């Protein structure tokens, strides 16, 4: 019987954001991360949650916060990332802004890397990140969460955008 491949816990992701001194979270709910991550985060007084109507708003909000030495993260589904590509290009990439994003890869196969997914929309997400020259990592399970805070620190130190793809459902 195959071993079940479990996603990270939301509490682990939240702790990583705190370790990276993230204060603001701009978000649209993503079914991949909603129960385990966004709901608990929404009740955590350490964060100011900005509920968005559309994901590209969050790119600009996070960029402006970075101008003012406030760390933020934009949490969304990969569909929101795809919809926000122009804003990410025009705001984060062209102007070297440390816009950090958590992107849930809904329905990605748990045993496959995003680039190897059979799902076209998941597969192209990583391809677009590569084409745009955006630093990225994929968090599949708890063992990957330790990479998140250093990656955020690095994004702010180098003033570069970052995408952390969430490859499996986030557990409560």
């Amino acid at each position, binding site marked *: 019987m195959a071993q079940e491949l479990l996603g990270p816990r939301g509490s682990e992701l939240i702790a990583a954001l705190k370790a990276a001194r993230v204060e603001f979270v701009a978000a649209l709910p993503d079914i991949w991360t909603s129960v385990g991550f966004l709901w608990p985060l929404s009740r955590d007084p350490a964060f100011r949650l900005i509920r968005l109507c559309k994901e590209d708003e969050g*790119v*600009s909000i996070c960029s402006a916060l970075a*101008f*003012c030495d406030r760390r933020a993260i934009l949490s969304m589904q990969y569909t929101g990332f795809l919809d926000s590509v*122009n804003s990410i290009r025009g705001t984060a990439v062209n*102007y070297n802004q440390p816009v950090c994003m958590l992107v849930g890869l809904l329905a990605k196969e748990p045993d496959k890397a995003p680039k190897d997914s059979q799902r076209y929309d998941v597969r192209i997400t990583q391809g677009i990140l590569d084409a745009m020259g955006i630093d990225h990592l994929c968090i599949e399970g708890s063992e990957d969460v330790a990479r998140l805070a250093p990656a955020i620190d690095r994004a702010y130190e180098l003033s570069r955008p970052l995408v952390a793809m969430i490859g499996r459902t986030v557990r409560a």
Partner: protein
Amino acid sequence: MMPRDRCFKALAAARGDAIVVSRYSAAFEWGAIAPHALNYFAIGAMGQCSSFALGLALALPQHKIIVLDGDGSLLMNLGSLVTIAAAEPKNLVHFVCENGNYEVNGGHPIPGQGRVSFAEIARGAGYPEVFEFDDLAAFAENVPALLSLAGPVFATLKLAKAGELEVAFSERGDADMCRRFKEALVPLIRGRDGR
């Protein structure tokens, strides 16, 4: 309808030390009329200046943030009105420069030209203070008080179509502009953080 340059001169006289985020193509004259280190010219992703201004307003809650949006620009990001109203930034004043057309892209009309009411949309989105101006004298008289209100404040500026415009995006929308703006923010950040 108000002439845009004179409208901006009235705003500049009341601006104080506010940060002004302007949608470049909707507010071409702003940089020349009101040169200031705390001007940010939003170029690159149309529609995003209101969201950028919200981020500044949240980061610097003690400082006044003014956004000069365009009508076509706001139509691209109407949801930002709801997001801003929900976030309740007391220090944000949101102007939309309504001239009814995509001025820099050939003068084509915006959808709903002459019928859409941005003020009504903002009111419905939850902005507590909403205004509309089409008379220059009334705007000049009221803008100081408007800027002192607890926001978010929204005001439509009904503007006459400008004449020929000399477009020079590269002068303002580049990494140097970002660097200069960030440097200008340093004293405000230090004041906020007590450093």
